[in-house]
């Protein structure tokens, strides 16, 4: 009996030691896996939390909640509703749960946890629910971010303004967005049954395939080309294609990512413009070679008459004939200048300092400025460079300065303010005067036209602004005008910024 007792005591002691050992192992596991234990004893309405569970909730070391305030740790809304639902089901129906829920800790921090619950029944009555809390905050948030990125990509892919497609290594379309379908006229289903080779114009196929090979071989990161596709209606679609390659972690090619931008309309427009340009040049050629030779003959014949038959010139018609012939020459020469401008500009522009050119222009008309008591205020930054032809820039500035003087207001000394603004592409310089002004409602349309004058000034010939505008446009710029009658006029000239 005694021995039995001793044995029993030893056994108990061993068991106690074993239990203690188990407890230690369990504690360690809990800490490493950030996993805590919990238990709700329904009979005693008692809740027990392990140390790690307490740490997850950020409460004191001896804290154990009631059933109710245990639930209050779950964030109101989805998480709390979910935990109440699954906990109730565990208690009432014996259904175990494993859910992801958000906790608001005692310190007010948000933690995403995995909550596992297991219910224990005795005599068809739930005695106990126990389970695990695991801090999965980091991985959960990472997963959420990944999901958001995936969704972002999906949305970008689907709603991109240009066509986007994933194409496998055999050239089949794996995924296309709606824009690709709209562009090419096929449904997604139809496209999936075609390779891109099937709908590529044969003349563009070789280059495309060559570039794809280089992509696969890693000789290039991406490529861009202009190519033609056959749309479903057999019409040609011009597109700019940009392709890059997706690879797996080992660098093995997975699929191609293609972007397609429809440039069909631009192409057509370009073709029309080129054809129009061609016709314009032909016209210019006719003007310069054929019309000019006839008009110069007129001039020569008239000179001859003057020289040989002086008496024939002494009537009222002769001076008019001379005048007409001169005007004809002049008109042709203006027309020629305009056409010649386009050719001249191509390679002859260079960076020019706007401030300096304005100063230079003032010097060359100094006497005109002085005799009119005109004042020019050059506020243009000394560092601005415009991309222009020297002769054109001189002529443009001079024309506006002399115009401002020519159309000065009665009883007001001409004051011309010049200032400029820099944009990435353009330099906008404004020439503001205090002169007569122009009724833009009446004359706006014809302001820059040839032989359009609207002041009864004797020397207004309506050619200056026409030539000036043509020069500005030949330089790739534009011109705008603001004016108020009797207050003044501001010409705003856009010229290409030479810094780009």
């Amino acid at each position, binding site marked *: 009996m005694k021995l039995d007792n001793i044995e029993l005591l030893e056994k108990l002691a061993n068991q106690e030691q074993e239990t203690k050992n188990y407890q230690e192992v369990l504690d360690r596991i809990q800490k490493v896996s950030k996993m805590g234990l919990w238990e709700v004893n329904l009979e005693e309405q008692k809740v027990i939390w392990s140390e790690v569970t307490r740490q997850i909730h950020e409460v004191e070391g001896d804290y154990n909640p009631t059933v109710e305030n245990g639930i209050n740790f779950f964030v109101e809304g989805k998480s709390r509703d979910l935990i109440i639902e699954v906990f109730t089901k565990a208690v009432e129906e014996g259904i175990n749960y494993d859910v992801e829920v958000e906790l608001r800790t005692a310190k007010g921090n948000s933690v995403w946890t995995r909550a596992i619950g297991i219910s224990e029944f005795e005599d068809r009555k739930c005695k106990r629910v126990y389970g695990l809390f695991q801090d999965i905050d980091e991985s959960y948030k990472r997963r959420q971010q990944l999901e958001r990125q995936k969704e972002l990509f999906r949305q970008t892919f689907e709603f991109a303004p240009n066509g986007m497609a994933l194409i496998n290594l055999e050239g089949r379309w794996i995924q296309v967005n709606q824009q690709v379908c709209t562009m090419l006229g096929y449904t997604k289903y139809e496209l999936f049954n075609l390779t891109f080779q099937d709908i590529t114009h044969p003349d563009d196929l070789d280059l495309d395939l060559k570039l794809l090979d280089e992509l696969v071989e890693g000789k290039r990161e991406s490529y861009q080309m202009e190519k033609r596709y056959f749309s479903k209606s057999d019409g040609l679609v011009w597109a700019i294609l940009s392709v890059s390659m997706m690879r797996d972690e080992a660098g093995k090619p997975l699929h191609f990512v293609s972007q397609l931008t429809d440039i069909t309309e631009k192409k057509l427009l370009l073709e029309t413009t080129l054809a129009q340009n061609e016709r314009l040049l032909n016209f210019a050629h006719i003007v310069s070679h054929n019309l*000019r030779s006839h008009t110069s003959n007129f001039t020569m014949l008239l000179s*001859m008459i003057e*020289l040989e038959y002086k008496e024939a010139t002494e009537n009222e018609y002769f001076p008019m004939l001379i005048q007409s012939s001169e005007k004809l020459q002049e008109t042709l*020469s203006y027309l020629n200048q305009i056409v*010649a401008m386009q050719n001249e500009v191509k390679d002859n522009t260079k960076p020019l300092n706007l401030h300096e050119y304005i100063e230079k222009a003032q010097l060359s008309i100094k006497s005109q400025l002085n005799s009119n008591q005109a004042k020019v205020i050059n506020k243009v930054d000394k560092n601005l460079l415009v991309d222009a032809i020297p002769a054109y820039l001189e002529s443009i500035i001079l024309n506006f300065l002399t115009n401002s003087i020519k159309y000065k207001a009665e009883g007001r000394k001409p004051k011309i303010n010049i200032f400029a603004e820099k944009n990435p592409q353009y330099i906008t310089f404004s020439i503001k005067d205090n002169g007569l002004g122009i009724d833009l409602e009446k004359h706006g349309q014809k302001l820059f036209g040839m032989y359009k004058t609207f002041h009864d000034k004797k020397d207004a010939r309506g050619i200056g602004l026409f030539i000036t505008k043509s020069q500005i446009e030949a330089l790739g710029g534009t011109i705008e005008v603001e004016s108020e009658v009797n207050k003044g006029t501001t010409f705003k000239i856009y010229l290409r910024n030479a810094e780009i």
Partner: protein
Amino acid sequence: MPKFNHVCIIDDDPIYTFTTRKIMEIGKFSKYIEIFKNGKEALDALKPRVEAGEKVPEVIFLDLNMPIMDGWQFLDEFMTPNTQKIVIYIVSSSIDPVDINKAKEYSLVTNYLVKPITPERLKELFDKMES
């Protein structure tokens, strides 16, 4: 006393050649004025003379746009060491910068004149050449 012995006009435009010849006659610019209707005619007549060292025009007024052989072709074919002595003016109604720049590439060409050539301008030109 005429300023030159022999001036040549190569141009297919009869009104131009008529008026220019008249001006030269009235102004007594040259003893002899020879006219060709295109580059080919001029080349066939002038080149053998140049090569044979015979008398050639001192001044040539050359048009650019002509049938059969234009002014450029004429210049290309007319070029021999002996032609260096001849003063050649291009006289054209073209004010195309492409033509004007091209003319600068020909060492034979003294200047590029744009039509019309009025009596005053012609006189100026001859006065300058003389001096």
